[in-house]
């Protein structure tokens, strides 16, 4: 078996460099290993360590015909987005950046005052997205903001994706200031309608041409064919492949992927989100079919205290019995080290409780909301955002979820709750788990062979057992 041709997929994560070896002939995962990421010294050291582990698993003599990578190392793709009205073009720009797998470190609106410009400089983003105005709409604000950004002492590349009437003019202003702008289609060409795909494409191109080098990751390109995208983008790709399939290989239909992590919790919905109540009035933006949100304040390690706060008065989990004192001690141990994994039944229970809260909050923020007004002829429903109640599949991923003995319980926290009818979360979906924690690899595999990626996703996203779930 050792001399089989394998394909490698690598994720340079913020904490771990993960390597997945896939056997394309048998359509199986041969091995998954990880070693600490070494971005502060030389990214290839951690990769080397992971590859040595891999060799131990697959034996010497395997040939790696294809090697693709994604990365969220060195802070991920840190973006600032600028728009005009906060819940219109600013929100459109934010959603576009998130969909491309970026970490949005700042969102700005209206004409940027000096204090906002100073703040953007302090944030020192990897990439700036400048939007504002529908096509033929407001021209003044994006032009003024281009002038402000042009004068800023920042090397970050920019994407201009606002009112197309003045997009070239805005780019020229930036170029005159020594910046490197590219123009993309408007994120909101018409009022309320988003167009995020063209911007996502530009972001990916810039990621490959500029960001990989700027982050000191290019050393890894001696070994891999390319670092193609930010890791969350690979996961969103996988979610889209699993939902939609590809020509010749059907997908499973609309779904949500929930990724619970140590620092953040991501939600990816691949669903139209059309209202399930007939007669409901839909308000606000028509959100993207493939939508990603990331909750930067919800993680079960580095952001653990936020999660505990969200837990509120809720007592620590009942089984096994944990004293408040022991509960606190476990939390403190988790908070100290992002790489900590639960070592006892009590720790696993606390971990799951945290993950459940993070999952519930993240899904609540991602899903649409319902408000009921009472009019003379009866109640009137107003829906904002995506109505995910009809979604029939939820897939869990992320270390704290995949490796938890309570994983189906964690995922159920993310579903529709009768006590919170206003939050339009999936009501009665099948629950699956990214069983080998390799979703990113399938997202990258999709770049090589989308049919194979769809088949392997369908194989490795396994149904979760009811009850307490089965640990590993």
């Amino acid at each position, binding site marked *: 078996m050792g001399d089989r041709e394998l394909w490698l997929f690598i994720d340079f994560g913020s904490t771990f460099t993960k390597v997945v070896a896939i056997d394309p002939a048998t359509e199986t995962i041969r091995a998954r290993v990880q070693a600490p990421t070494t971005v502060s010294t030389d990214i290839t050291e951690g990769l080397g360590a992971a590859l040595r582990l891999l060799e131990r698993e697959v034996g010497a003599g395997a040939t790696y015909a294809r090697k693709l990578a994604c990365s969220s190392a060195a802070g991920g793709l840190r973006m600032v987005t600028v728009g*005009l009205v906060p819940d*219109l073009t600013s929100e459109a720009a934010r959603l576009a950046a998130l969909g491309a797998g970026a970490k949005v470190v700042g969102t700005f609106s209206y004409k940027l005052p000096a204090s906002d410009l100073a703040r953007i400089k302090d944030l020192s983003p990897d990439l700036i997205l400048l939007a504002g*105005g*529908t096509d033929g709409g*407001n021209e003044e604000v994006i032009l003024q903001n281009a002038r402000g950004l042009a004068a800023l002492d920042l090397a970050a590349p920019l994407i201009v994706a606002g009112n197309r009437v003045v997009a070239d003019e805005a780019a020229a202003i930036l170029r005159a200031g020594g910046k490197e702008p590219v123009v993309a289609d408007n994120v909101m060409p018409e009022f309320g309608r988003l167009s995020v795909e063209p911007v996502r494409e530009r972001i990916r191109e810039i990621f490959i041409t500029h960001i990989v080098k700027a982050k000191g990751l290019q050393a890894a390109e001696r070994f891999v064919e390319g670092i193609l995208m930010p890791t969350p983008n690979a996961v969103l790709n996988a979610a889209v492949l699993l939902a939609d399939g590809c020509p010749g290989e059907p997908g499973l239909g609309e779904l949500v992927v929930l990724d619970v992590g140590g620092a953040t919790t991501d939600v990816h919905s691949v669903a139209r989100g059309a209202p399930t109540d007939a007669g409901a009035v839909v*308000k606000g933006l028509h959100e993207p079919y493939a939508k990603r949100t990331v909750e930067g304040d919800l993680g079960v390690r580095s952001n653990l205290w936020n999660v505990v706060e969200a837990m509120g008065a809720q007592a620590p989990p009942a089984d096994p019995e944990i004293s408040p004192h022991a509960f606190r001690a476990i939390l403190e141990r988790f908070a100290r080290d992002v790489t900590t994994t639960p070592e006892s039944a009590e720790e696993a229970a606390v971990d799951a409780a945290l993950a459940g809260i993070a999952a519930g909050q993240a899904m609540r923020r991602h899903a649409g909301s319902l408000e009921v007004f009472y009019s003379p002829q009866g109640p009137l429903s107003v829906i904002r955002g995506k109505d995910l109640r009809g979604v029939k599949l939820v897939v869990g991923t992320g270390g704290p979820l995949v490796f938890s003995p309570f994983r189906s319980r964690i995922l159920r926290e993310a579903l529709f709750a009768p006590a919170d009818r206003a939050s339009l979360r999936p009501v009665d979906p099948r629950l699956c788990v990214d069983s080998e924690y390799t979703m990113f690899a399938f997202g990258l595999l999709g770049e090589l062979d989308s049919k194979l990626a769809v088949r392997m996703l369908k194989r490795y996203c396994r149904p979760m057992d009811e009850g307490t779930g089965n640990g590993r």
Partner: protein
Amino acid sequence: MRARRGTETRTVVTGVIGADCHIVGNRILQMALEEAGFKVVPLGIMVAQEEFVKAAIETDADAVLVSSLYGQGELDCQGLRDKFEEAGLGRIHLVVGGNLVVGKQEWAEVERRFLAMGFDRAYPPGIDLRRVIEDLRRDLGAPARDG
């Protein structure tokens, strides 16, 4: 709002204000405006004041045409001009029409109240939309077109 040349298309925002869900007349108005060469940003029913303002900012609208059919127009429209002032669009052209008040009331008096509220024009029930469009063209200095 930018100064527009005579030949440029004018952008107008339409919507039914408040908790009002009578859509039919509003759609007819939208169609008539489009037919007459306006670019229409239709916000539909149950439109909050803030939504009119936000839409006008992003689309750089020249005018906002507010519908109110269910009798609560007076309450719903109060403060709309101030909201535009606040957002830096204080000079935007504001028009209102539909069934603005409950029951039979003297139109001149109703009109006076809506103009005092900051609307540039208010129209009674049953108004001929051709006249509305003629007025709008004149008020915005928009190009005439045979429609």
